[in-house]
């Protein structure tokens, strides 16, 4: 599926997620947080995963790192990760979540930056201690060497006077600085993929601009792949090469960023783009809206999950059959019966 996004002479993707299903088995019923998501991450490129609450964007990222907590688990699908250039890809979905292999990958080859930089650090240790620990966990270096590398990393992410800051506790830093430290920690083992889950949502807009610039600059220098997860279409437009639009656990559309913004194919993508408040709007104009709200995960609609809110709803089709993610142009995939007939 996802392979169709590539041209013939492009290198193979570093990460391929294929029909991933991550369900949560609660007392009230099964929540299909991710329900058959497929996408690919190209080396050195940025993939933006965008969607509203409950669309499964964060659970997708947690599934890749195998940090989905009980009662959730991956029930189907593959997550193929190319560890070294020559080797066969590893299926992360099949690994033991507590085994040595995933622990080497998690935080080492695939690193994560969280949304809330205050709660994702331990308040009891200095930031230096926490980064040194990460380095020593994944690489065979002494304490002094790890400390020097930490200072270098802090300098690289633009922390003033890193020799002093290294011995400070997280609460002594501002939100923007904490997020820089978080990024420094994620970069400490030269990851191949950096997953950034709403990295700027908790930050002010001028600080957000600084952090987005920093991420771009580091990517240019290190050529790592970035998966950026956000609900903010503006951040996607600024950062992503490829875009994955998710709704209720499904990928409804994917493609290059320019096509997604200028020729969106799925009615949800189209409606979402129309409904976001824009800084270019005329003052005091009404916005087109999407009717209704996101259904509760226990009351997931049958057929296409978007059909109760969709302007193009076709009775008998969209509410009975599940659309598949299929090519709709040379570079885009969409999951909608406007573009293919149900398989009966």
């Amino acid at each position: 599926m996802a392979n169709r996004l590539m041209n013939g002479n492009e290198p193979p993707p570093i990460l391929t997620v294929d029909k991933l299903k991550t369900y949560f088995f609660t007392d009230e019923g099964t929540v299909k947080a991710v329900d058959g998501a497929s996408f690919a991450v190209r080396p050195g490129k940025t993939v933006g995963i965008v969607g509203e609450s409950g669309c499964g964007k964060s659970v997708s990222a947690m599934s890749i790192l195998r940090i989905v907590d009980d009662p959730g688990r991956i029930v189907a699908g593959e997550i193929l990760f190319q560890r070294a250039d020559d080797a066969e890809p590893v299926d992360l979905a099949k690994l033991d979540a507590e085994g040595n292999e995933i622990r080497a990958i998690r935080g080492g080859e695939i690193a994560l930056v969280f949304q809330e930089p205050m709660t994702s650090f331990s308040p009891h240790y200095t930031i230096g201690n926490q980064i040194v620990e990460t380095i020593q966990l994944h690489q065979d270096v002494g304490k002094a060497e790890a400390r020097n590398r930490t200072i270098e990393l802090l300098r690289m992410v633009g922390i003033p006077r890193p020799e002093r800051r290294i011995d400070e506790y997280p609460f002594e830093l501002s939100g923007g600085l904490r997020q820089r430290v978080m990024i420094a920690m994620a970069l400490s083992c030269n990851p191949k993929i950096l997953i950034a889950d709403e990295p700027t949502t908790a930050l002010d807009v001028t600080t957000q601009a600084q952090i987005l610039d920093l991420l771009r600059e580091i990517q240019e220098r290190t050529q790592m792949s970035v998966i950026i997860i956000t609900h903010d279409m503006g951040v996607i437009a600024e950062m992503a090469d490829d875009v994955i639009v998710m709704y209720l656990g499904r990928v409804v559309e994917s493609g290059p960023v320019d096509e997604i913004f200028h020729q969106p194919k799925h009615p949800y993508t189209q409606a979402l783009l129309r409904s976001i408040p824009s800084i270019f709007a005329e003052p005091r104009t009404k916005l087109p809206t999407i009717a209704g709200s996101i259904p509760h995960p226990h009351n997931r609609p049958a057929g296409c999950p978007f059909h109760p809110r969709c302007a193009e709803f076709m009775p008998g089709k969209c509410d009975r059959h599940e659309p598949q993610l299929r090519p709709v142009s040379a570079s885009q995939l969409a999951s909608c019966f406007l573009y293919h007939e149900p398989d009966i």
Partner: protein
Amino acid sequence: MPIEAPLLEVRNLKRFFPIRRGLLRRVVGQLRAVDDISFHINRGETLSLVGESGCGKTTTARCILRALKPTAGEVLFQTAAGDVIDTAALPKGALQPFRHQMQMIFQDPFSSLNPRMTVFDIIAEPLLANGVKSRDQRRQRVEELLELVRLRPEFMQRFPHAFSGGQRQRIGIARALALNPSLIVADEPVSALDVSVQAQILNLMLDLQDELGLTYLFVAHDLSVVKHISDRVAVMYVGKIVEIAETDRLFKAPKHPYTEALLSAVPKPDPRLRSERIVLAGEVADPAQPPTGCYFHPRCAHAIDRCRSETPKLEEIQPGHVVACHRAREITLKGVDAQSNGKPSA
């Protein structure tokens, strides 16, 4: 511009918080959360207060509602009877008869509604508190209010957990409208909502304003949202207002370098507009130890010696456009312009 007196006029409002240290909790300094600001809101219009966290926008809103007692300054509110009262000076008891004329919409629709109360009880509580004794009358009013915010009156016996974020925000709005207020203070009313629901609530607020002639003070950090709802916008930085102008003017032709940087920093929802953004160096100044002169000068690309020593005053440089910048008349700044499809205009 209407000649009648504004509904609300804030004059030289200050709110400081003491910083206490040591065993004796001695006051060692003052955090200047709101530092001498003045503005007005005309009847029927929306003024937005924008700025980054810690700039004092919420403190300002709370001082206006007298949820906080201002340290100094006047908050002149025109009551329904046409009198002008100073809510900053009146004793709390004397304020009581006027409180229902100013109401608040909160940010988080999950924590601002009591989970143990039904929708009916939530919306009827202000009615009960203001002497509507008959249950039938209350029921009738709650029905009206639910219809006003486009919710089905049948839902009134349900509890908040049965509603989505957008529906809960509608309930919060219905509660705020229960006593026919003239001024609504909305503190980040859509920032906790999903993007597809934000538009519904913004449209509802615009409709209600037209139907009921409401006046809004809209506190927000998201400039895209602000653009959709405001007649005029006031930009705050470290406790001070740096610029006020009509929405279109402020976005197209900002006169304060901080406004320019804020506009530039907003991620534009179009990949073709990835342009050179103005990325401010450094961080927002500490309101407990603000810099000398203009608070923005350490981060300002246009700062000169005068900015380091002398605090700029708000000055009207065009009718209705006030700026606190020594260099407002000489520097050219970039805004955003709908006509040029978002390309920065001079």
